[in-house]
């Protein structure tokens, strides 16, 4: 199979895409011409303007269909592959029992001003997400969910008090890179509070984190949109067993 592909409308290789956008101009012939010009510059050729609608007197909304001339080379696509297997809750519990001989303690929080606990709750609450139960469901995981708008010093203090093996922070709503600043502040605080090599596993979750930026943020793992509890649990088990210097389960 060829590694080069094009978008698929209704025929292989037709390159068809759909696009909608708004231009800050009054709807008239010139506006439609402007929309087609944009589409051409974006590589849609021929471009078909299928819909134009004024929104107030100063804006026009367009829907454009067209064929793009770009080719996509699958061989050049780089993805980060998961380096650990996904475990069921039962397997994860067994692995924790085997390697840790006690429950794995996970402390979670939304830090900074973010009040949106939907992400951390999806991972931690027994209710879970996408049909999977959250970490509270795992008999060998002790979950301490600190909720929203937790201050970093409080998070560190709670993590120490609970003897946390892992700390999960969530950043959902963010502006002006607040999620990056908050996360860096968090990881710095943990490095300061713990002796080297004993910092808990630091995990950040949220839709805005850039894949692969763990080192820059000073944390161990980033999870993005759509992450399910079992992915997080499996990662924690994997990382824990690596740290214990034992073989992976």
């Amino acid at each position, binding site marked *: 199979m060829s590694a080069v592909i094009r978008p698929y409308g209704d025929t292989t290789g037709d390159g068809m895409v759909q696009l909608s956008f708004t231009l800050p101009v009054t709807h008239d012939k010139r506006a439609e011409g402007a929309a087609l010009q944009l589409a051409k510059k974006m590589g849609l050729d021929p471009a078909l303007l299928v819909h134009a609608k004024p929104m107030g007197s100063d804006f026009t909304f367009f829907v454009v269909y067209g064929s793009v001339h770009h080719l996509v080379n699958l061989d050049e696509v780089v993805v980060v592959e998961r380096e650990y297997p996904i475990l069921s809750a039962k397997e994860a519990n067994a692995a924790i029992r085997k390697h840790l001989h006690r429950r794995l303690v996970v402390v979670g929080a939304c830090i900074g001003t*973010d009040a949106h606990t939907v992400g951390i709750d999806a991972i931690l609450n027994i209710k879970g997400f996408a049909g999977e139960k959250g970490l509270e469901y795992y008999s060998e995981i002790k979950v301490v969910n600190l909720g929203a708008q937790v201050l970093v010093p409080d998070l560190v203090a709670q993590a120490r008090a609970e003897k946390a093996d892992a700390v999960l922070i969530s950043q959902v709503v963010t502006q002006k890179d607040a999620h990056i600043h908050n996360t860096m502040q968090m990881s710095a605080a943990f490095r300061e509070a713990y002796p080297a090599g004993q910092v808990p596993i630091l995990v950040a979750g949220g839709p805005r984190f850039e894949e692969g930026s763990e080192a820059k943020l000073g944390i161990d793992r980033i999870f993005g949109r759509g992450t399910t509890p079992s992915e997080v649990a499996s990662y924690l088990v994997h990382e824990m067993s690596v740290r214990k210097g034992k073989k992976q389960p």
Partner: protein
Amino acid sequence: MTSPARLDLDPELVRTARRLARHAAAPVVSIARRHTTVSVERATLRLAGLSGADHERVPWVNHLVTAVRDQVGLEHGVTTPVYDALLRGDADDLTTLAQKASSGNVSFRLPTGREEQAARRAAARGVGVGLKRIDSARRTRERLVSRLGDPRQKPWIYLIVATGDIYEDIPQAQAAAREGADVIAVIRSTGQSLLDYVPEGATREGFAGTYATQENFRLMRAALDEVSKELGRYVRLTNYASGLCMPEIAALAGMERLDMMLNDSMYGILFRDINPIRTFVDQRFSRQIHARAGIIINTGEDNYLTTADAVEAAHTVTVSQLLNERFAKEAGLEDWQLGLGHAFEINPDLPDSFRLELAHAMLARQLFPEAPLKWMPPTKHMTGDVFRGYLLDGFFNLVGAMTGQGILLVGMMTEAVVTPFLSDRDLALQNVRYVMNAASGLTEDFHPPRDGFIQTRARQVLGEAVELLERIVHDSDPSGDPPLLAAIADGTFGLMKRPADAGKGLEGVVKRAPGYDNPAITALDAGVPAPKVTAPKGGK
């Protein structure tokens, strides 16, 4: 318009539900009446006209309340020592007094006898100015509504604006009104609910929202007045009286003629971990202000459904609505002011999800026939597939149209993706208009059969709600807290355990002394001057 279809509910069970809600609320109200908070006292000073902040943007009301608390405590109320100091000539006005107090140059005392009476009278006059301002704002609204008119259709269309910059919000809000919005909500900056002060002035820097300040309120209301005149209908303005400054925000909203306020009885406790006592004390004061100001409250039941399963937790919405109704009535709010919340959050992959939504929405409609229910769009199951999301919003709108909801928060297909594009809002409004136009008459034809799926489900949810209320009123804890507080503490509501002696803002709670005086509370307890109905009633 024909009335929405009726459900065959057991009237005795409905009465039981209300009786239990009253039972659960009463001891908590009694606690609210025996305490005050820093925010209640600051709100009282705001009514007396104290505004502004120091060069570090710490409001003068915070300085003055702190100074009084440090010297003589707050258990007698802030106004008596404050007005006593004014009468003794420590300063000519409240601002000067606050400035002097902040640098430690005023010594407060608790006056007695004649001097106490004089201070109380002066305080009542001072605070009366703010209450008159609220009354006059209410009359202005009533005048504008009778001149310009209410929205022509029901539900009222509620749209959100949130840029962080009030000067960006204004043109967006005006554009939204021109596109058909009847109610504009300015979302607050994330995190404001946990600030123990109200920021000052016009603000241009917010996170995912714009700070609620008195000046921002004034600017936005003026802008909406302008566009209301242009459009020939009164466009309403909404903000949030929640979090640690609920009473102050309510006072500012009343004076600046906001029209609706988000105000939920338990949201701050459960979802923001604010101390339960602080919340109930602050809430009562803020709701009394809303009652006086003719403001419609919007409650936050949608939150229960976004954090739990919308089918399993359906009855928690009903319970919360009943408790919100009870606390609101006790604070003097009338039915037309109760925008009780509920939401379209059932997993669309579930068989019969739409029928379940209809059943739940009809139940709310029928339990609160005179309240302008607030119908909230799907958020939890908006996946980023904007096309599917658009369809889901269409079905949400259909339930709204078929069940006579009062306020409809317009769903955006880009929910959970980006802040809405201009085009998203336009498409969302087209969606609402199409559904209303095409199907709102269905209320005439739609009568679910007595023992059909919808009626059975509604009765089941009501039954579960009554069971939960029973559990709440029989709950208890070792420290002998009222059952509702014990229930909140042991995690009866969702998985969140919120004990009465923990949570943010606890340090701002003060037990009232026998001689406690607060002229605002005295006036508010005396009741609301002749109200006039201006809300979209359901079921008419």
